[in-house]
């Protein structure tokens, strides 16, 4: 059975380690915050200029001056810090952020990502995505394995305008966990419970590498 968005987030949360500074993109990545184990210390970065992003405020306690990169009202936490947007991207560029989790429209087998523009449709802009993928040392893509038209989003070559090149190392979809190998190719690491290797192969347009027995994901937090 393929995973829900919450389950994808749950699986990604297992990649977060104690002491990590983490930038979460919009969509499924935002949900990851709900599944970070309570016994580890993690600081969430919001690229508009905040380290230590807390949960949404209680009703009536919203502060128009305190928002995240998705423009949602949020809160700070003890130990939070606030800075300008240039410093925010300075720490991203200087690789101080340990893990970046973002969504994608397409990923290619050499690690290129496309997630900002569909030709012929209204383009809203790349926001901070190009800065993040160009600099982050550790990027996980959270996305659906196939698009709404049923076409694979894991391709040999991206067809959409690129956001960054050779930067994605890991992908978590509703079907599988895959590593993008430096020499090219999607290495199947884990399957969603009940999903066959054959089904993942059919859903992957780029080069899929399957070696040995592929275990099912463990979603226990």
């Amino acid at each position, binding site marked *: 059975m393929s995973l829900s968005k919450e389950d994808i987030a749950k699986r990604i949360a297992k990649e977060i380690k104690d002491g990590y500074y983490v930038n979460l993109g919009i969509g499924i990545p935002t949900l990851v915050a709900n599944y970070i184990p309570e016994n580890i210390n993690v600081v969430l970065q919001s*690229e508009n200029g905040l380290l230590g992003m807390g*949960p949404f405020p209680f009703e009536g306690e919203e502060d128009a001056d305190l928002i995240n990169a998705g423009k949602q009202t949020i809160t700070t936490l003890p130990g939070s810090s606030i800075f*300008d*947007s240039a410093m925010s991207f300075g720490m991203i*560029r200087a690789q101080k952020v340990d893990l970046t989790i973002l969504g994608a429209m397409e990923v290619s087998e050499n690690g290129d990502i496309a997630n900002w523009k569909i030709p012929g449709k209204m383009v809203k*802009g790349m*926001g*901070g995505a190009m800065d993040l993928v160009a600099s982050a040392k550790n990027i996980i893509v959270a996305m659906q394995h196939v698009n709404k038209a049923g076409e694979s989003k894991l391709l040999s070559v991206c067809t959409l305008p690129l956001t*960054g090149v050779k930067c994605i190392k890991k992908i978590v979809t509703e079907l599988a966990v895959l590593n993008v190998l430096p020499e090219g190719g999607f290495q199947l690491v884990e399957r969603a419970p009940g999903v066959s290797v054959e089904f993942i192969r059919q859903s992957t347009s780029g080069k899929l590498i399957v070696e040995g027995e592929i275990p099912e994901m463990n979603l226990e937090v």
Partner: protein
Amino acid sequence: MINKVVSGAEEAIKDISDGATLMLGGFGLCGIPENCINALVKKAVTNLTCISNNAGVDDFGIGLMLKQRQVKKMISSYVGENAEFERQLLSGELEVDLIPQGTLATRCLAAGYGMPAIFTPAGVGTEVAEGKEIRNFDGKDYLLEYAFDADFAIVKAWKGDSAGNLIFRSTSRNFNPVMAMAGKVTIAEVEELVPVGELDPDHIHTPGIYVHRIFQGKDYEKRIEQRTVRVKS
């Protein structure tokens, strides 16, 4: 101390004329210079080039200037949430230059630090790199991006003093300090204008040297774009 105080938004923007290049602080609707935007709408200057991370919404922020067709070109990183913007863009009435958010912030920073250009990896291998100089440092490619050249920077701060020193509050800081440094003329509107001596020098985010005009803002709406809350259990 040099006194930078002007009477209000109208006086602050009085010499902004058609064709000017403006930087406008804020992220989404957070920390935008509401008073100056309203004054620019009233003054009806046109043909403006606006450098701002976002373009407001249909009925607030830079969206108000777009509605009146005052903007010739937007330089932004993300421009969703604005139907009139979309219409003008698709009809070719509005020119838009979309650039990565970190590049936008750092091109402001470069201007304020007196540096002509920066090198950034953002956009290498994408259409953003088209026509730009690429340099390789230590095995990695970087794009050369130029410092912005803006006639006016318009920012909003929480507190400021009559010498132009500014303090920002929470994430409404965003692009405001770097834009404040980057304008040939910088205009600051503040929620609370105080006499010199009241702000602790150690707490100043933007030193007054960067600020040419400052005024006590009024009637801040501080609209929230995405009100998200949790329920008390």
